[in-house]
């Protein structure tokens, strides 16, 4: 179960997508997500499919891995689709018991379903092709102008780096504690919801304790090395916008314009 989580996973590579400046990749991802919400006709998704297909094939990330990231969210997608199918008012096509399926509902559900799927795969493509370190570097740089109004950009980026850094550690810890409790006869797999929730206590308490202990130790280690936040710190790797970044931005602008065209100019 734990191995299915691909959110935040990074697959190293040396492709045009991997090598883009992280700031550019973050901006492109946000533009992509925004574009998804501008679409109001089904053929608009053709542009999205084209854009995604190009990015995926350039990044050489296996499509299988990308779709695996959808697995844990299938329940949410299905729920959204179902709610849209049954809850939208309009021209009734079919009635099951008290639930009415409307034409508008089906269309709405199709939109929402596609939107969610592309949203998740688009965002996963960003994390799959960007190492957590360069991702947070990018975020920090992008937030830098906001420092003037008091946004602690460096601290936020540091928190993110640490959080990402501890995901595998905590997963490992969970696995270890689970096994230790199973060795004492704990059962995490059978029973109804209540007994299963109860079975989580012997797992969660030690996990929290160890997370706090690790946080304490890390804070102490950082203090011991005189860590004092972002002021006057320089970087080993400076982020530089190159030709390929301008290319990628141009393609994104074309894509975004095409979406806007499909919404406002096509009747």
């Amino acid at each position, binding site marked *: 179960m734990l191995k299915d989580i691909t959110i935040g996973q990074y697959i190293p590579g040396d492709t045009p997508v991997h090598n883009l400046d992280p700031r550019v990749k973050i901006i492109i991802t946000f533009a992509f997500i925004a574009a998804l919400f501008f679409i109001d006709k089904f053929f608009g998704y053709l542009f999205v499919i084209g854009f995604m297909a190009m990015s995926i094939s350039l990044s050489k990330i296996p499509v299988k891995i990308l779709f695996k990231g959808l697995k844990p969210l299938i329940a949410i997608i299905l729920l959204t689709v179902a709610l849209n199918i049954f809850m939208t008012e309009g021209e009734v096509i079919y009635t099951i018991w008290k639930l009415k399926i409307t034409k508008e509902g089906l269309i709405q559900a199709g939109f929402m379903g596609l939107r969610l799927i592309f949203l998740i795969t688009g965002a996963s493509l960003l994390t799959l092709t960007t190492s957590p370190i360069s991702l947070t570097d990018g975020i920090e740089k992008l937030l830098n102008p906001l420092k003037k109004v008091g946004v602690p950009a460096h601290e936020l980026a540091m928190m993110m780096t640490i959080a990402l850094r501890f995901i595998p550690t905590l997963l490992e810890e969970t696995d270890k504690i689970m*096994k230790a409790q199973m060795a*004492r006869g704990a059962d995490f797999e059978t029973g109804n919801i209540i007994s299963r929730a109860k079975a989580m206590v012997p797992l969660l308490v030690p996990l929290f304790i160890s997370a706090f202990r690790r946080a304490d130790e890390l804070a102490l280690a950082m203090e011991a090395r005189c860590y004092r936040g972002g002021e006057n710190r320089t970087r080993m790797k400076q982020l530089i916008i190159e030709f390929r970044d301008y290319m990628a931005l141009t393609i994104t602008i074309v894509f975004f314009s095409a979406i806007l065209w499909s919404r406002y100019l096509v009747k």
Partner: protein
Amino acid sequence: MPIKVENLVHIYMRDTVFQHLALDDISFTIEDGEFIGLIGHTGSGKSTLIQHLNGLIKPTSGKIFVDDFDINSKEIPLKIIRQKVGLVFQYPEHQLFEESVYKDVAFGPRNLKLSEEEVEKRVKASLDLVGLNYDEVKDKSPFDLSGGQKRRVAIAGVLAMKPKVLILDEPTAGLDPRGRDEILGEIKELHKKEKITTILVSHSMEDIAKLVDKILVMNKGKIQFFDIPQKVFKEVETLERIGLGVPQVSYLIRELRKKGFAIEDCISVEEAKTAIINVIRGKKDA
């Protein structure tokens, strides 16, 4: 209850780029009541092997028999195997979670659905076995105890399952010398008193040399040696090559032999003392 392992193979992350052969065709038998020291370098497959013995990991191929039951056959519920084979993980104090020592030790027996009197009896007995005073600690929070005491409570938690085989993964890691000696002493007592088959995982030859009946040395997923300590310690060159040493005293004896003293093999300082004294006296007599 003998443990029999036949052609056990385990491959991690099979069919991916991270594929790793952790256990490579391992076979051995452990007899009833034996005290085994399992020793090997980090990454030699020790932990993988012991987790197989109570069904926490499934073998890629091969079979494991505990008490003549194939523990991976579907007919035998894993709960029964896990009750029979008690496994104490490394840093077991990290698994404590209850509000009182009593409740934490009772976690295992309660999972076995025992009556409350039986649970109490077992908690009392197992805290006793690890050298803790039942009345003193039972209502304390396990988090208020010292490191060594926490570890004892965690070991008691496994003992309360009344296992017939007890496996301890580096029970002395991170303890001071006194805590280490105490824990090892208690494990020895336990083995003597309860006659349970014990497997002690360690990477310190010194620790296990004087305790165990036989030593199982692992290297790169294979069994290098499986014999009585005296014989294993003779293989100094091989042991050093795979990143393990022999107890200091064995080096001393070896050097003395090179100088021409006729001293028999010893594994502990006490034994060596008597042997050396005997040799010196023998010389004087001659």
